[in-house]
């Protein structure tokens, strides 16, 4: 099996071809604009292909650890406990992208409840939940990378 070149590297090759070979041949604004959007999307896919699985596994683990701790200390309502139970019941534990995404989706439901229940407070749970939210939002920004809006 070929593991090299990596997915990220292959995408880079495609982007280079699109920019250097296809781009100059386009004269109409519509296709040029579409090419700009395609190139940006490929850039985001490049970043995601390299780090997304690892990032989601870590985020899922940290969310569930925090929720268990908050439930144990009585900081949060039974809704959070129920959401953790739902996560456990549906957890795949696999490393295929679809499995990690599914596990992460259940963890996101848990984090949403933690944030709602602790908004406006400064408990340890509240601070850690907001830190996890910041990490999630920052990951979204990292995926975007360099960005200049292409006109539709």
């Amino acid at each position, binding site marked *: 099996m070929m593991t090299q070149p990596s997915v990220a590297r292959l995408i880079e090759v495609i982007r280079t071809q699109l920019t250097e070979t296809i781009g100059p041949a386009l004269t109409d604004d519509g296709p040029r604009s*579409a090419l700009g*959007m*395609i190139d*940006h*999307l490929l850039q*985001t896919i490049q970043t995601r292909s390299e780090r997304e699985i690892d990032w989601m596994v870590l985020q899922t683990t940290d969310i569930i650890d925090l929720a268990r701790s908050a439930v144990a200390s009585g900081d949060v309502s039974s809704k959070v406990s129920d959401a953790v139970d739902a996560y456990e019941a549906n957890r795949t534990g696999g490393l295929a992208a679809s499995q990690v995404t599914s596990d992460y*989706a259940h963890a*996101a*439901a848990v*984090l*949403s*409840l933690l*944030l*709602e229940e602790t*908004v*406006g407070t400064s408990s340890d749970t509240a601070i850690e939940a*907001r830190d996890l*939210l*910041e990490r*999630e*939002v*920052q990951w*979204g*920004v990292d*995926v*975007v990378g360099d*960005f200049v*809006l*292409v*006109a*539709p």
Partner: protein
Amino acid sequence: MDAVQLKSRLESFLGARDYPAEVSGVEQIVGGFSQITYKFHANTGDVVETLVLRSDRPGGATLTLTDRDLEYQVIKFLNDAGAPVPLVRWADRDGSELGTRSLISDFVPGSNLLQATRSGQLSSADAALVVAEAAAAIHNLDTTHVPQQIRGAADWESYIDAQIQAWRDLEARQVERMPVVRYLAAWLDANRPEPMELTLVHGEFGIANLMVSDDGGFSVIDWEYAHVGDPRMDLGWCLQRGGQEPPNVLGDNLIVACERYRELTGASEAAINPAALSYFVILGSWRAFDQIVDGFSAISMGANAPLLTAYLISPWSLSCSAWLQLTKDLDAMKTSSSQMEVSA
């Protein structure tokens, strides 16, 4: 529809309204997500007028859906009230004559405020005063006779409730839970600003929708999102757009613009201040992404979607980061002012 077809349809349309005219110079002037706007000349033999045709994109090829017939009614109300708005002349309310639902207004010569500041025609500080004056002109209007369809909430609390609920609804109908949206909605609910009287709200009050003439006059265009609501929605929208499409004339001159707005409207400093307007940057932003985020879910579910929808994931991600940062800044300001009160 090509230019020849459009010219022919426009001539038939105008002729049916006792305005027989030869149409020339049909030219698309603005690109947008929901409308196409053309400028054209109408020569009646006695006079040549320059008019603007604003139409829905054909075949439902839009990312946002608004009602051109309702927009016509709103602009008629504004014209009757003497508001700084181009005169609306006619509407094709069902699209049977011009191909899609459309309205025709007077053309406003000059440039929009975004162009005027980028070109140096107006300084950022002067542009901010135009923003404050235009906003005050809209928000000071008596809303007794606005079209019934743009009246929503009965009172301020209900209006804010509905805006926060719109954030919650946006999240609830997606394919996955979105912690950032859930947090923003909870934060908005817990940090409501000083109430204000509901007024007419433009709904898309960016400086690209403010036209300025050489004599210093201004007019406000594009009324598709007008409604009765909290006037700070417009100022918050202007700040938000300025962040995405510099220069941010309001953000860069916020204290002065707030002062000018308060002078013209009689609003209190407790209601109109930088922190309160930042709250409305977040509160009103659901509408900029509402249908776009639905598009993300549609793609996830296997639906065919325009490339643009997938592309807009990036502006969404950047906006989430900006909104979250605003909540942190406003929390820090609140903590700081509480500490000052305690020490005083």
